[in-house]
């Protein structure tokens, strides 16, 4: 039995404690915005927040989430995600869209920590998120745009 909070709700799952958080979120809780891309923490498509910090859910066993707070793309709230979504939409960042939940989670975490990131900050924070459609230019632009919005 593993108990943890997901997007503000308590859940107890009676499944193999080694189950990656990714598959628990998807198969058990049907939170499908978190995506499978590689299974070895190389692409970032599965990024969620664990106690507010970005984490690759594909290599995180649910036992590690015991008693902790998980936030997925579906449960994100606050000024940073609002600004990020608006910026993403304004310049149509996504192409195929598969990696974008993970990109948005990483970008939001960046803005929470660094309100006005430099290009280097963006390179560093987003290095673990692959986009096969290569929407990188727009990701960078949208992060800068969102940061400006938050400055007011």
């Amino acid at each position: 039995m593993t108990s943890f909070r997901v997007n503000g709700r308590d859940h107890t799952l009676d499944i193999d404690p080694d189950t990656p958080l990714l598959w628990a979120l998807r198969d058990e809780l049907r939170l499908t915005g978190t995506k499978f891309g590689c299974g070895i923490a190389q692409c970032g498509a599965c990024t969620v927040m664990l106690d507010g910090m970005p984490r690759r859910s594909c290599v995180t066993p649910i036992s590690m989430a015991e008693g902790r707070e998980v936030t997925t793309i579906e449960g994100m709230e606050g000024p940073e995600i609002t600004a990020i979504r608006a910026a993403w939409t304004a310049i149509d960042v996504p192409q195929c869209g598969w990696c974008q939940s993970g990109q948005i989670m990483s970008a939001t975490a960046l803005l929470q920590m660094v309100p006005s990131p430099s290009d280097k900050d963006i390179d560093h924070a987003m290095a673990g998120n692959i986009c096969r459609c290569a929407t990188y230019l727009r990701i960078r632009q949208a992060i800068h745009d969102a940061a400006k919005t938050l400055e007011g």
Partner: protein
Amino acid sequence: MAMETSRRGFLAAGAGLTLGLMLPLGRGRAQMTVAGPFAPNAFIRIGTDDVVTVLVKHLEMGQGPYTGLATLVAEELDADWSQMRAEGAPANDQLYANLAFGAQGTGGSTAIANSYMQMRKAGAAVRTMLVAAAAQEWGVPASEISVKAGIVAHAASGKSSGFGALTQAAAAQPVPEDPPVKDPKDFVLIGKDRPKLDTPGKTDGSAQFAMDIYRDAMLTVVVAHPMKFGAKVASFDDKAALAVPGVEMVRQISSGVAVYGQNTYAALKGRDALSVTWDESAAETRSSAELFEAFVQAAAAGGVPVEEQGDVATLSGAAKVIEAEYRFPYLAHAPMEPLDAVIELKSGKAELWYGCQFPAFDRPTVAGTLGLPVEDVRINVLLAGGSFGRRAQGSAHLAAEAAEIAKAAGRDGAFKLVWTREDDIRGGYYRPMTLHRFRAGLDDSGKIIAWENTVVNQSIMAGTPMEAMLKGGPDNTSFEGSTGLPYQFGARRIVWARMESPVSVLWWRSVGHTHTAYAVETFLDEVLEAAGKDPVAGRLELLPAEATRERGVIEKVAEISGWTGPTRDGKGYGIAYAKSFDTYVAQVAEVEDQGGAPRVTRVWCAVDCGVAVNPNVIRAQMEGGIGYGLGTALHNHITLAPGGEVEQSNFHDYPMLRISEMPAVEVAIIESAADPTGVGEPGLPPLAPAVANAWRAISGESRHVLPFGGAMS
């Protein structure tokens, strides 16, 4: 993907270009059910809430057809963009054929090109019906009614209405057979940036892909595939797999051994515990190095001439002869969403949900595997998390595997087939490994008098259901881009030598152009240098007077990049040009030397794709093609070890371009009134040769083997 050969083949197969061009109305009056929306034709649904939904016959995999086809409809319907929605049309060759193929499928960058008039006429027909309905309801002449931004209005009487309130009356109107469409000068939406319809769902996690589908009591299935191409299951032991909690069954299918789990993790653990013995008697056991040896021998032996002009025997009298050999590796497409599909069997019918790119092949394959009539197979076409050619399978192997796991279960039920990244990287269907040989001759004045190019690789279409389309002739997808060049070379001779291997190959974003553009445009650069000519001026000199669109993109990219030559301030600048899928693209890359390796800092791109339906999508596809091409040229190869096993498995050893490597991109779209052509693939071919040319300018090093970052094993 796709190419002239297949297009001709499809058309010759007779499914009917002219029939397809007509709206599939044909039943006199539009039908309307009491509860349903107004459904005047196969493509358009209008609800009483004014929402216009376009059923898009092309797979949305990031390249933009949801937005593009909806734009074409909205333009002629005079709808407001905010009322437009798009969803994937189900598998149905009669209603949703690609008019370039004569059957339903997405590829060859044809979505906008083949839909341009069809979707506009569909929109225009419905506009006519809405106007007729308003005229009838208001008792005014139809000619006095205007439609603008989703409002139908009669100025003299002051009456106006949205579309929704008119749908019931519109459904009773005759469907116009050949409604007039707008003069392009009257376009309101076409040619302007508009927000993409699929963006919102891709920023909040709500967009639905195959892996996101959960049916009642569904089992998740992973398949143990052989490690060598051409190997088959000899025997297997499933005891340990079945002992894994949550594993429900294990079945042998034609592609391997399928493990059925109550959830994904159980299926994966079960597969890990499985023990399979493979029959490798027909497997490919050669390494990549050994394969290339065979390719070299084939090149020396010669192949079939696929393009000849003049007599290249003049080479023997040339003042200077330049030669080169190029080697290109196998490449995996690696879309972010690995292959996956959900299939449900219920009472003798099958329903599937996935990003289906070739319904024309997949639907009969599923029906055939399950022994069902085609009408009893429904394919719901969902969004796809990228494809780059990977989901466009002439073999329909994914659909076949999905049908086989359902059949092998021996009962009704729902099954989700999931490929892992390792399955994807090692799973074949690669861009064909290719060898190019060149000889070019210059006369005393530096003029190219002869050009000889031998291309050696496997055929993509032979050995698949598409082979019939080749009609015994050569497979154009193997060498397209080596042939059909606009340059005046004096004499030319292009030869293709076909290789065979159990390694499966497939079209990969821009198909033959992935290697031909690199080989041709880097070799040409070296030949021009030997002739003492500037890369831009030298190319322009080789173009005949009628090559105005070729000239247009080369001159434009030279202009926006401020071209002054191959070096400037310690940086290298390289140009390359390629026409693919009827779209003309030229790019200039700016490259720095970063510790002995190229770092690409900027790319300028000029594209001529006819009428620019949505410039925002065109720019995005050029950016994407550049990033995809760059990551591949820098990092990627699939190699076979001695014995035949693939040496790569996931993103740690098949690395993708990262954000820090993405150059700045500036795109110029040539203004044109020509019919629109595609943009999904054409942004890719010129990128790698432009980079290589720039790199050679600063390093003096010619790169004739890709990728830059790794030698072929």
